[in-house]
């Protein structure tokens, strides 16, 4: 009752009539409505599509393919060429050619396979008769309110929607429908704005709220919810081709989800659309760009990334840039620019040169090819720590500060500690305590090698031969030695290596290494390359590494002493190479090390981890901490012992050399005052921990401008290796805004897109919002507002909304509110015979929207109805149930393996499901989700048996039905009708209708009697899924009701918004 009263006051026939009368007075000012009563066809909606599809391929903007130098996309040129005679169809050559029966003369030529229909020829003829008027392509002209008399603006925005819709309805002899009942409306608006159904409490609250603005209040609440932000973000993911893997052959995991969370947050805070756009296109270029503003530019990096071994990198880099052009043009301009990649656009005024000018705007990125193994991200990327990581880092940093304080104190007292200790100890104690700086020494003596060894793998098969002293290790290019606990060197620690080597011939070989070749060569090695000594110290090759190469080379077939020292400075200048006891000059091909050499890979003698095997002998290997002096190395090369230490230790501090002081400090820390050393290693470990946290933070690929900018060339036929003319950044001339300079970088591109006079941006955006609510846009081709896209069903309405949107400060929430508050939106969706005849697709909106829910919403809806849905916002993507083996079937070497989450990861909203591009989640794909390789602005909406199989048999839906059933049983209502009503209200926001009761009752009886025959089947059936339900429920009832609830989740009405 309440509902009826409420609705009548808003939808009274009086109001509608009033609106029509008011609008009738505007008719004369209203071009598109007015033209329907004049004689000539409308150029924009009727003629242009014909010309564009049938004529312009050869007589349009594309210069190269233009035939007979005739262009028909411009009136002046068509008239000048004499092709058209306005007002006289029969004298117009093009009409003559169109009507010709001579296959050599008729247009379009039969070979093009694009013949005109009788109806099209008639339209063209009528158009010429009426004067052959051209108008600018509608979407390239700024939106305007000319369709409206001024006083129309005074009305509330949502009423203006109804006025314009009513006007069109009247012209088609249709009337608006009754309002939908309140509960249906609540379910509709909840699903549209949040992607979730209303709860019973929400329904009751709304139905009992008699306030005039009850509906508006509910809308406001919905728009303020987290679920709204998720729903909006979910739609943005198709447009942004967001995924959790790289796509292409290797399809590694990536971590772009902080970008996805940025989108959620942007909607949650109702970020104005102009900022939303600007940050995603150029957040990095904003003054003092924050981390989040950089993350926003992940939008332009969401495309796939190919790491296949043999690819030509520039070829793919060009594809990524082209993808950015395609995405920006589709998402923000509603234009299909990619046609102009190979040649001038055949329909829209976009030349190939202009395409590459636009290309240039998003080409200015030093995008690095990432390697297949251990993919983190293709540079540039930023690390975006999670809230937990930020907290953990904070705690560790606090701890670090405390330890550092203590360490600082020790450091300040280090000279004193040294002097005191020296003074108070005997020579003998000093000698025993400080000993030597030797860390490891391996002599390769056959007799006692087992005794001297560290833990060697494969030591059994060692071969010995004559050495420099005693025997030596002999390697044959196949054997090698590996040890887990030898050779642990770090980039911030000084060390020295000394050894003897004798090789029979020169080539490329590794003497020793501790390196992870699969992880960008992390670690170090010492190589012989054609006799030259080469050393790599690598964090990440080649961006973070030192490489030095001696100028002198050793000769084959004789013993040479080699030594390398390094001072821990992370600079090539801190390295020394000695050959046969003499320091030698070296080249520095690489000198940008800042990171660490640490790797879990073992130390190898005689090869790298996997490559560069050595043939030859190695002897007398020594590792020292600290940098040995030239004198010491000379001694080693003569097989002498090192310079004795104790000759200097009793000197006064001020008399010590800097090297000696450093050694004294090191000894104090490590040997004299172990507590000091302990503090130092604690600091190091804590710093490492911080670095680890930083390194484990998700890597989000972002945009970063190159300086100087990259040059862009027109690419012949779009091919990466066929550059022709150089172009400067810009936009198509046809889209220039008067008085505004064309953009020359990404930030300016964003400014141009969000300029109030840009004719497309606001139209495209509001059209999407309309589509979200009505299932179809005012422009049905929401991805194409160009010459071949569809003409808007309500051009004046689209313009109104676009202008309102701009004037509101690009306020998305306000625009959605305006739409859902309209009476047009609030009509019942029931179809009548008249609708079926006059408007089967509901393009005129004589009834409310009705269409199947999206893949994600179908899932969310079922989980929400059952109560399983976990309402956690954001975070890493999750892995719900998926049939086993799908990833193995398609991944390289079958190494992909899908491991479903346990616990809450199974029950998150669909937008968080892990998206593997080469194998997207099958239940989503069944319901028309794209694979996210390219930007998709509009999903298809199909109706297939595979969808029925998913809803009937996917464990997600069986489990949801079971948990739903347990809720129904526990709802405290013992009689079956009450339970049915409860279940229906949860799923459909309405009570069960009397005529529906027998169906549910029959099913219940059938299931109950069938399960009663065999309790074992009850257990099997109730065993699907992982969530347990209360055991006090009678199992038979639960199983029977699970069948019923599964049926309810399968109803057309359940998966439909109406």
């Amino acid at each position, binding site marked *: 009752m309440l509902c009826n009263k409420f609705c009548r006051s808003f939808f009274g026939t009086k109001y509608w009539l009033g609106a029509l009368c008011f609008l009738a007075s505007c008719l004369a000012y209203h071009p598109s409505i007015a033209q329907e009563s004049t004689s000539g066809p409308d150029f924009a909606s009727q003629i242009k599509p014909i010309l564009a599809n049938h004529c312009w391929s050869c007589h349009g903007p594309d210069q190269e393919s233009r035939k007979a130098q005739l262009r028909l996309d411009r009136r002046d040129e068509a008239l000048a060429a004499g092709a058209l005679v306005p007002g006289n169809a029969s004298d117009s050559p093009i009409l003559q050619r169109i009507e010709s029966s001579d296959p050599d003369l008729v247009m379009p030529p039969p070979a093009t396979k694009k013949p005109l229909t009788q109806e099209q020829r008639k339209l063209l003829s009528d158009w010429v008769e009426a004067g052959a008027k051209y108008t600018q392509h509608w979407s390239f002209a700024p939106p305007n309110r000319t369709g409206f008399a001024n006083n129309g603006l005074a009305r509330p925005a949502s009423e203006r929607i109804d006025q314009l819709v009513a006007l069109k309805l009247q012209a088609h002899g249709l009337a608006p429908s009754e309002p939908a009942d309140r509960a249906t409306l609540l379910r509709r608006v909840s699903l549209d704005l949040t992607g979730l159904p209303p709860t019973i409490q929400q329904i009751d609250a709304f139905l009992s709220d008699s306030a005039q603005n009850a509906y508006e209040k509910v809308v406001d609440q919905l728009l303020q919810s987290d679920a709204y932000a998720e729903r909006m973000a979910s739609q943005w993911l198709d447009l942004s081709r967001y995924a959790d893997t790289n796509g292409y*052959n290797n399809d590694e995991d990536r971590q772009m989800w902080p970008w996805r969370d940025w989108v959620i947050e942007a909607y949650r805070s109702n970020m104005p659309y102009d900022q939303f756009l600007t940050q995603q296109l150029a957040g990095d270029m904003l003054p003092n760009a924050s981390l989040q503003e950089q993350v926003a530019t992940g939008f332009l990096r969401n495309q796939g990334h190919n790491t296949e071994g043999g690819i030509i*990198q520039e070829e793919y880099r060009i594809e990524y840039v082209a993808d950015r052009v395609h995405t920006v043009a589709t998402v923000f301009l509603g234009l*299909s620019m990619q046609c102009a990649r190979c040649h001038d656009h055949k329909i829209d005024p976009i030349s190939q040169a202009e395409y590459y000018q636009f290309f240039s705007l998003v080409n200015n990125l030093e995008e690095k090819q990432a390697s297949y193994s251990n993919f983190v991200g293709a540079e540039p990327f930023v690390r975006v720590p999670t809230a937990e990581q930020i907290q953990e880092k904070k705690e560790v940093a606090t701890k670090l500060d405390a330890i550092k304080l203590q360490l600082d104190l020790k450091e300040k007292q280090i000279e004193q500690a040294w002097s005191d200790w020296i003074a108070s100890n005997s020579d003998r104690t000093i000698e025993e305590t400080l000993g030597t700086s030797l860390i490891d020494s391996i002599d390769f003596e056959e007799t006692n090698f087992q005794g001297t060894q560290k833990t060697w793998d494969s030591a059994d098969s060692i071969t010995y031969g004559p050495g420099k002293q005693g025997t030596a290790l002999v390697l044959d290019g196949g054997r090698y030695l590996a040890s887990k606990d030898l050779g642990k060197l770090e980039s911030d620690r000084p060390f020295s290596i000394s050894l003897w080597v004798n090789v029979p011939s020169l080539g490329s070989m590794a003497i020793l290494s501790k390196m992870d070749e699969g992880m960008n060569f992390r670690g170090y090695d010492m190589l012989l390359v054609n006799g030259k000594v080469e050393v790599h110290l690598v964090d990440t090759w080649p961006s973070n590494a030192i490489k030095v190469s001696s100028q002198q080379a050793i000769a084959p077939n004789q013993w040479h002493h080699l030594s390398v020292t390094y001072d821990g400075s992370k600079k090539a200048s801190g390295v020394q190479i000695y050959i046969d006891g003499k320091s030698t000059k070296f080249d520095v091909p690489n000198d940008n090390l800042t990171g660490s050499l640490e790797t879990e890979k073992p130390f190898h003698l005689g090869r790298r981890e996997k490559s560069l095997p050595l043939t030859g002998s190695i002897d007398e290997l020594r590792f020292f901490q600290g940098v040995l002096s030239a004198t010491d190395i000379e001694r080693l090369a003569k097989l002498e012992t090192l310079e004795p230490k104790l000759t200097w230790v009793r000197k006064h501090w001020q008399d010590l050399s800097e090297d000696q002081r450093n050694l004294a400090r090191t000894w104090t820390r490590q040997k004299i005052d172990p507590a000091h050393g302990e503090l130092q290693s604690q600091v190091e470990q804590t710093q490492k921990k911080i670095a680890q946290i930083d390194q484990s933070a998700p890597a989000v690929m972002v945009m970063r401008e190159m300086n100087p900018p990259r040059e862009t060339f027109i690419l012949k036929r779009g091919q990466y290796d066929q550059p022709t003319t150089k172009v400067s950044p810009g936009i198509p001339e046809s889209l220039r805004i008067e008085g505004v300079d064309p953009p020359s970088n990404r930030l300016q591109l964003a400014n141009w897109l969000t300029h109030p006079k840009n004719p497309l941006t606001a139209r495209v955006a509001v059209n999407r919002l309309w589509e979200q609510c009505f299932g179809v846009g005012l422009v049905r081709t929401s991805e194409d507002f160009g010459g071949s896209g569809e003409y808007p069903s309500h051009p004046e309405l689209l313009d109104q909304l676009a202008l309102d949107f701009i004037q509101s400060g690009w306020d998305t929430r306000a625009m959605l509110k305006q739409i859902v508050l309209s009476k047009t939106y609030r009509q019942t969706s029931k179809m009548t015979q008249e609708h079926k005849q006059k408007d089967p697709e509901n393009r005129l909106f004589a009834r409310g929207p*009705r269409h199947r829910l999206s893949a994600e919403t179908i899932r969310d809806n079922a989980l929400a109805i059952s109560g399983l849905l976990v309402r956690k916002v954001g975070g890493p993507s999750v892995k719900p149930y998926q*049939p086993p083996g799908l990833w193995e079937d398609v991944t390289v070497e079958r190494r992909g393996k899908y491991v479903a989450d346990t616990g809450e990861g199974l029950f998150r909203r669909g937008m968080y499901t892990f998206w593997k591009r080469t194998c997207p989640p099958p239940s989503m794909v069944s319901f028309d989700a794209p694979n996210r390789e390219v930007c998709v602005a509009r999903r*298809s909406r199909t*109706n297939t048996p595979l969808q029925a199989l998913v809803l009937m048999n996917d464990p997600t839906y069986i489990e949801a039905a079971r948990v739903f059933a347990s809720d129904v049983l526990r709802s405290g209502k013992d009689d079956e009708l009450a339970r049915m009503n409860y279940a229906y209200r949860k799923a459909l926001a309405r009570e069960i209708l009397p005529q529906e009761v027998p169906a549910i009752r029959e099913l219940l009886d059938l299931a109950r009697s069938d399960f009663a025959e065999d309790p074992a089947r009850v257990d099997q059936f109730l065993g699907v899924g992982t969530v347990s339900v209360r055991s006090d429920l009678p199992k038979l009832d639960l199983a029977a009701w699970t069948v019923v609830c599964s049926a309810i989740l399968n109803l057309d009405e359940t998966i439909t918004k109406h």
Partner: protein
Amino acid sequence: MKHRDSDAVGLAPRRGFLKHSALGAVALTELLAGKAPVVASEHQTHFAPMAKRVIYLFQSGGPSQLELMDYKPRLKDLHGSELPESIRNGQRLTGMTSGQKNFPVVAPKFKFQQYGSNGAWFSELLPHTASITDELCIVRSMNTEAINHDPAITFMQTGSQQPGRPSLGAWLSYGLGSEAEDLPAFVVMISHGSGNDANQGLLDRLWGSGFLPSSHQGVKFRSGSEPVLYLSDPPGLRRSVRRGMLDQIGKLNQLEYQRQQDPEIVSRIKQYEMAFKMQMSVPDLTDISDEPQSVLEMYGPEVKKPGSYAANCLMARRMVERGVRFVQLYHRGWDNHGSLPSNIPKQCRDIDQPQAALVKDLKQRGLLDDTMVIWGGEFGRTVYSQGSLQDDYGRDHHGRCFSMWMAGGGFRPGALIGQTDDYGYNITEQPIHIHDFHATLLHCLGMDHEKLTYRYQGRDFRLTDVHGKLVAQMVRNH
């Protein structure tokens, strides 16, 4: 056939194809009783088709033409010599061998022999396939611009090297619809080769629908108890209960239709019925116990091993018999960058007997005339050795020439198309580009490749983009 973007009705078969606008006049009861009037199908071919169905035996990874079908006797003498620059001729190489200093020619290790009335050469690795030479249209002059797996396989399967286009099977589902009441129009099956470690990735897009309505995407059939995802009822739920459930869902949906009058509801009711039928027809399809022993023996010893190439070949025949329009098999493991001589015999053992049996089996059932069988990979392999010359050599990717064969379905039996040079490196006679192959394939199916278009983002897209020409020599009676 032209089509603008629009909502599509999924797997609806031709006979029951429901157009929204046509529904108004049809009584619901008639629809549900399956008595819906036949709506003029959109699925009309451009001319009389020679083939109605396709089985595509895709060899993923790039099988070497030099070891299988492109016999090059001079290679024996050239073995170990450097590939002349005049032959390589600035060829774009993959990143895997572009750094190589030497390009030593390597002769295949296997013996070749001539077969059939046209004297086609086959290596000893494919005796069964060789025995059906007279049925085959052999093309040794296929070529592609792509030199890496992802772009090459994407090109072969979608007509474009880059992601985003509909796959071949999706185009056919869109263009020809389905003949089966209770099976998808486009089915995909995957088998894993016995060769070691040479599996490249397969990608969802290879059987995806691109910008076509997603109902045209391929449906994966898998070995095991659930050939189609989510086909099986949950454990403990009996068929009688499922039937009862569907009856009640149907009734409730009917009531909703009476209230709402939306034809989509009628379509939903039909889809649920079809799902129920699929639940019965798929087990019937995959249960091969009704195959006579003689047939099983034809396909070889692995035919009973679920998921093997042999089992998939037999399944492909059973599918086309039941009206599946396009059966896409993938056999993985042909990417022999190394150890080619030890791996390729294993791969050939996997495929040889089953695929020959498939062709013979189709023929003996009278199905070969209107069913085309296609065999081939995404590219061929280089005549030069990857890395230094070794006994167990490898070959890199090679797009300039590779070999394929087709049988039945309008292709000319016994045809030998194209020639390559003495190195098996360049085409010397009648190059067949992928676009040409696609154009010819569509032609055999009764479609003009220039007319099979779909309007998306303002452009009429084709499988063959703006290229492709019919190769008359490949077509029967042309």
